[in-house]
């Protein structure tokens, strides 16, 4: 183990893993936003959110079966980035309308348990759609990489087995894969868009006001139910964007991926300060870095321990997360 630590430690590989961590972190952040937005408005940990992401991946997988040959497939990607987020968004709105909305006045534990229930239902839907074994997309949508063993794949492998060291020491040329460029090109506009929406538009201000005091928001003439639906819609859009990028980058999906990635993203939201939008981004990147560096330098089997260990240590010293406000002002 120690030997292998020395063998791996070169600046070049370190920078690649850091980059990789940042990229995975951006994906976690995208999912984390769905948790944090909903929590900010109705104080519900929407456990089903990760599975909405999973179904987005499943949808992407099926849509990819209809993908045209490369390079025509490049036109197909924007289509994916349109269809999948819209479907995830509609799914999220429907879940809110059918399950959470009727429970709005119930004690807080009730919607929380219902969210778990919805999560199981969605997992079953995913299982029915693709079965229990992992599935890989066959179509080639992006230009082929000059270097097949991209570091992304390696980190993935490293998290799966401890014996990836052989592969990890292999030299590599490309820093960014095409999928990574797609990721960056999706995440940055999406997050900028959200920031602008929340900060400057009237409906964005209504969202902030509702999060800060829902009763006062109603008294201002804000249709709070509409704001809640919009929040679920936004969360769905981000889950859908993450799903497309994730599926094209990792290329393998399974029906339980929503549980694991959802948990990482939720941790990211909590670490950053649940309810805080910049917090979710920061938390996502932090978790991504631990995910990537932990897998390589500590060992794939320890990744989860590292992530949740960080969560616990951080919450001991900063219970409200990095950027969270301490206690919500409640009268």
């Amino acid at each position, binding site marked *: 183990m120690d030997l292998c630590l020395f063998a791996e430690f070169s600046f070049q590989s370190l920078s690649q893993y850091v980059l990789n961590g940042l990229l995975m972190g951006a994906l976690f952040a995208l999912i984390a936003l769905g948790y944090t937005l909903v929590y900010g408005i109705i104080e519900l940990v929407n456990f089903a959110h990760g599975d909405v992401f999973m179904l987005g991946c499943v949808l992407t997988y099926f849509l990819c079966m209809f993908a045209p040959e490369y390079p025509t497939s490049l036109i197909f990607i924007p289509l994916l980035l349109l269809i999948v987020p819209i479907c995830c968004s509609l799914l999220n709105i429907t879940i809110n309308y059918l399950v959470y909305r009727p429970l709005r006045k119930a004690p807080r534990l009730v919607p929380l348990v219902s969210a778990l229930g919805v999560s199981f239902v969605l997992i079953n839907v995913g299982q029915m759609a693709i079965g229990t074994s992992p599935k890989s997309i066959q179509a080639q949508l992006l230009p082929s990489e000059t270097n097949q063993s991209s570091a992304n794949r390696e980190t993935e492998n490293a998290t799966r087995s401890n014996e990836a060291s052989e592969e990890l020491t292999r030299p590599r040329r490309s820093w960014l894969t095409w999928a990574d460029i797609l990721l960056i090109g999706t995440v940055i506009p999406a997050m900028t868009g959200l920031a602008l929406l929340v900060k400057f538009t009237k409906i964005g201000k209504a969202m902030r006001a509702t999060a800060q005091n829902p009763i006062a928001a*109603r008294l201002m*003439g804000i249709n709070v139910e509409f704001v809640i639906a919009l929040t679920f819609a936004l969360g769905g859009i981000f889950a859908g964007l993450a799903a497309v990028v994730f599926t094209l980058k990792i290329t393998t999906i399974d029906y339980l991926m929503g549980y694991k990635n959802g948990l990482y993203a939720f941790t990211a939201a909590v670490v950053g300060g649940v309810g805080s939008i910049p917090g979710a981004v920061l938390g996502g990147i932090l978790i991504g870095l631990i995910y990537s560096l932990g897998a390589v330098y500590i060992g794939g089997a320890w990744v989860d321990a590292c992530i949740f260990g960080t969560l616990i240590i951080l919450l001991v010293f900063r219970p409200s997360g990095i950027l969270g406000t301490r206690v919500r002002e409640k009268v």
Partner: protein
Amino acid sequence: MSQPILELKGVHTSYGVIEVLKGISIKVEPKQIVTVIGANGAGKTTTLMTISGCVPIQKGEILFNGQPIHRTPAHQILKMGLAQSPEGRKIFPRLTVKENLEMGAFTRNDKAGIQQDIEKAYHLFPILKDRQKQLGGTLSGGEQQMLAIARALMSRPKMLLLDEPSLGLAPMIILKIFDAIQELNREGMSVLLVEQNARLALKIAHWGYVLETGTVTMSAAAQELLHDPRVQAAYLGE
């Protein structure tokens, strides 16, 4: 007599199985200040929240300018011209003073008019102008109360519901706020004022109701209530 601007007819409201309002009837004539006084827990806040549509009504009717509003969603009631400054102020703590005022004008789209009304609010409570860039949560209790009233006025309401504007404030500040309420009323604003500070409320009101555990037990001109021995014993500490 003219049609009342607000009328509650036998309003019942419950939280779960607990009935809090047991069929109360209240009338507010246009351009008047009407006060509802009562002990803590009598149901004053519930009354205002039922009127504003934030708590569902069980039975009875609420008419605003003759139109039934007891099945109307809260955001539409505000649009009809009925605004509330709620108990505990409920300022948006992480919005600035100016943004809080802008939220008050959420249902409006006339930018110039909104800007004009913000200036009017600063005229009514000059301290808010000095604080306009400060976050709502950093204001003192009195400043928050002023902001809550000013914010409610930003929708250009026909009527104002005020829930305990004097609560927890120093006497000097209370006087300022009650002066402002009277000034608004002189300009034609109808006001339904809920107070535990009965003496103060009855002094500025035209009409008063006494609410005891969800039932209206007295209804008379405010001056009359001020001199009623039962009111004096129970609410004026004499």
